[in-house]
């Protein structure tokens, strides 16, 4: 039976080349983003961020929280999808949607809240667009008795109230951003009281709040190495579960926003591929939205981690932090960059990139939902598209591949989007 791993996996020690570290801009600016890191994040997280340890012990309190929210998560064989596609491929999906907020985000929100709590912080602060990350943080904060402050872009705040309600129920204070709470927010609000906000503004407000007070910690949803480390529970469980099936995946697939769920499922196997003989023939496919084509249309260079330019720079595939993607519904894939470790592996051709449009993704999600019951989140739908194409390719070539998908979230709170795109 599947069991919860008691340590996370960190791929840095197994990478084929050194990972370019986070850094300040190469200039003589006085302001150091690196210096801000300890004011923003709990010590343990920074320690993990650049840790040389391959395995990092998961504290008991986090193990318990993982367990109580449904870890280990099920690995399901998509038999009906296989039948529907009439494919010789065997398709498995790892269900990261079974926890109360419906995505993989709590895997890292929980440790972030826990470490903040351990440091006697009082508030966990973050920003959110559609609310997927915000609700994971609100949940995690609630579980560890922290107060939670979420800056939500005003447009989402007004148009997508459901995840906001959920955050409120968890006890979070949700502020439409720009808010009157911070200096940058107040200024923008003075100019335009109906300012729709942006993720960049929301980040500025969150970071300003954390830097400006005592007992605040900032929570970040992806990209940072520690978020990838926390997400490794997905892959560590999956490795064991595939072992129980007596199978080795030929292809591992996940969507990429910042890259945390991809890293989560792929890195434990990719790391083994790099350091031992295991998973030698396994391919790793990262699927982005063609609305934010970092991998298929971006550059590999240092860029700020966040659209506000408050966090350090990271060497990553990116489309420039100023890039404004078209307003697709997969908010989680509209990020301008891709986590450095994945970027490096992409550069080294150990990760294969794919990009799909919203329409391609949503159609695939419909097929998947009909066959398997689970409606994937719009983000996840992009990975599902690849799985279906690959399975059809397997049929064409009569090739019996084993495909493993990270089902990063469900779409129950995205039905409005599905309704619009699929014209329901």
């Amino acid at each position, binding site marked *: 039976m599947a069991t919860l791993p008691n340590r996370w996996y960190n791929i840095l020690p197994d990478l*084929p080349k050194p990972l370019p*570290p986070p*850094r300040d801009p*190469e200039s*003589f600016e006085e302001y150091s983003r*690196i210096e801000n890191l*300890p004011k923003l994040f709990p*010590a343990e997280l*920074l*320690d993990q961020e650049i840790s040389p340890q391959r395995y990092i012990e998961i504290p008991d309190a986090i193990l318990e929280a993982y367990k109580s929210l449904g870890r280990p998560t099920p690995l399901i064989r998509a038999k009906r999808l296989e039948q529907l596609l009439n494919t010789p491929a065997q398709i498995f999906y790892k269900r990261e949607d079974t926890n109360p907020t419906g995505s993989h985000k709590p895997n890292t929100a929980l440790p972030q809240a826990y470490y903040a709590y351990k440091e006697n912080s009082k508030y966990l602060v973050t920003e959110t667009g559609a609310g997927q990350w915000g609700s994971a943080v609100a949940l995690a904060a609630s579980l560890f008795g922290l107060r939670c402050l979420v800056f939500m872009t005003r447009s989402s705040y007004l148009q997508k109230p459901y995840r906001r309600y959920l955050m409120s129920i968890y006890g979070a204070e949700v502020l439409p951003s720009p808010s009157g709470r911070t200096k940058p927010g107040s200024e923008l609000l003075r100019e335009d009281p109906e300012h729709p906000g942006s993720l960049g503004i929301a980040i500025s407000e969150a970071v300003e709040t954390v830097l400006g007070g005592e007992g605040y910690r900032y929570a970040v949803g992806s990209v940072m190495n520690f978020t990838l480390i926390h997400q490794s529970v997905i892959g560590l469980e999956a490795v064991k579960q595939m072992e129980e099936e007596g199978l080795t995946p030929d292809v591992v697939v996940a969507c990429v926003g910042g890259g945390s769920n991809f890293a989560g499922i792929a890195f434990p196997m990719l790391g083994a591929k790099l350091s031992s003989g295991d998973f030698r023939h396994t391919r790793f496919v990262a699927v982005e939205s063609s609305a934010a084509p970092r991998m298929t249309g971006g550059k590999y260079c240092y860029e700020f981690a966040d659209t506000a330019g408050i966090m350090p720079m990271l060497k990553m595939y990116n489309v420039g932090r100023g890039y404004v993607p078209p307003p697709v519904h997969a908010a989680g894939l509209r990020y301008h960059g891709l986590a450095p470790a994945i970027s490096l592996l992409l550069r080294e051709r150990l990760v294969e990139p794919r990009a799909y449009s919203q329409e391609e993704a949503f159609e695939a999600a419909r097929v998947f939902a009909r066959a398997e019951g689970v409606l994937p989140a719009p983000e996840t739908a992009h990975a599902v598209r690849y799985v279906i194409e690959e399975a059809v390719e397997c049929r064409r070539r009569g090739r019996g591949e084993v495909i493993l998908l990270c089902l990063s979230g469900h779409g129950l709170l995205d039905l409005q989007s599905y309704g619009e795109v699929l014209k329901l």
Partner: protein
Amino acid sequence: MLSRSGRVLILYLTVGDPLITTNLIKSLYQSGVDMLEIGLPTAKPKYDGPVVKRSMLRASAHVQGIEEALENASKMTGGGKILFTYYEEALSYGVEELFSRAGGRFYTVLFPDLLIDYPDDLGRYLRLCDKYGFEPAFFVTTGFPHKLVKHLSSLEPAFIYLGLMLSTGVLLPISASRNIRLFRGLVGDVPLIVGFAVRSPEQVGSYVHAGADGVVVGSAFLRVLEEAADEDKRIRRACEFVAGLKKAVENHGNAPE
């Protein structure tokens, strides 16, 4: 010159920084500094924190170009010297040109970005070291692949320099000692030097205790210089500071963890 048995104290400074005088250098070596890591001023201080950046700004105003900087550096005498500059800087100047000008004047040339941004130039670096009489030395971060660290160690370099933090001078609340222990295990008999944000004898003591064969102190040293009112005080304070660190380097056995 460096070995596993003899613990060393290394100071970082930027050549051309007006706070660094010949007298100061002499006094430092006398107070127990084993080696100087001499940085060239650069326009792109990739991994440098605010204090080193200030030093570079000061230095830039006083030295024009690499030639002059190397010239100045070679005047710093009294102990071992490591040339420290970004490989990107060397590339724009001409790598071999740099080696040939630096040849004979330094124990080694350390490029902190070599293996990070130009990993494919490792071979070239080794050849140039050979050709111009440098012992090779490697800068690594805590995030380096273990295989690579082991490979580098097998090349028998003068030392491996582990950057403990993300940038010079900026102390992050991380388990540096645990990381040193881990790298100690990786590098085998190669001398392990650690640096970035080393500032106190306590730190030095536990790092040496954890397995470092030497420490590099930069920003904290430069700050002592910045805070002193005149050269006399600078020399006195710097020597006191160095003496404290030196003691910690040597008393590694009973250092607190």
